[in-house]
């Protein structure tokens, strides 16, 4: 498992190619890429804040649970922090497993947890000003599906 927090942009295709390389016992790799949305022009910049030394450890803790629950062979989480323009990737998750079903479910679960249980705080800036985005009732319910 690897967890990376980075301010630099990333290319999800490059990450996926490297993640898939040299896997002779993996039957399935499922990946998810989350992009920053413009929300009809109301968002010109997203600001992602983390708690270095805590956020990464919490994601590793969540990831260990996902690996154990879905019998994953490997897991990669890359999450951007800092200023992010609409259209740019924010988060990339890839799971490797022997069978596809567990890889699909693992990525679904970890993304639900990252949305409302990983220590990030997200501020939206646009023509109408700034506001902090808090998890929606839907985000909370999505994560609770796995409890």
């Amino acid at each position: 498992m690897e967890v990376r927090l980075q301010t630099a942009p990333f290319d999800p295709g490059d990450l996926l190619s490297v993640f898939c390389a040299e896997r002779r016992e993996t039957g399935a790799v499922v990946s998810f890429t989350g992009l920053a949305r413009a929300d009809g022009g109301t968002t010109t910049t997203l600001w992602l804040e983390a708690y270095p030394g805590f956020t990464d450890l919490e994601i590793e803790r969540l990831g260990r649970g996902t690996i154990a629950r879905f019998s994953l062979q490997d897991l990669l989480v890359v999450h951007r922090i800092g200023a992010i323009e609409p259209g740019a990737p924010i988060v990339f998750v890839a799971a490797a497993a022997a069978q596809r079903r567990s890889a699909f479910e693992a990525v679904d679960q970890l993304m639900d947890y990252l949305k409302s249980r990983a220590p990030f705080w997200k501020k939206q800036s646009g023509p109408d000003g700034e506001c902090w985005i808090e998890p929606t009732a839907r985000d909370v319910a999505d994560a609770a599906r796995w409890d």
Partner: protein
Amino acid sequence: MTRVLLFGRLSDIAGWRERAIEPEPASLSVLHQTIATLDPILGEALTGPGVQAAVNRILVRGDVALDRGSEVAFMPPMSGG
């Protein structure tokens, strides 16, 4: 010295992200009282829905004793991805 960190909207409310509190509070509840005396609006925000605390980078619930030199982080509801 107790190091206090604020994240998300809490740092906007306070106007700071990191601050040293002296004399060192013996517990999280004493720290909270100290902050509420300095800044009542922030003090109220810290008791708001979904605000969690971490002491030395471990999430805590309720009141806990604070060792010397502790790092206390107050975190509003988390939103990643």
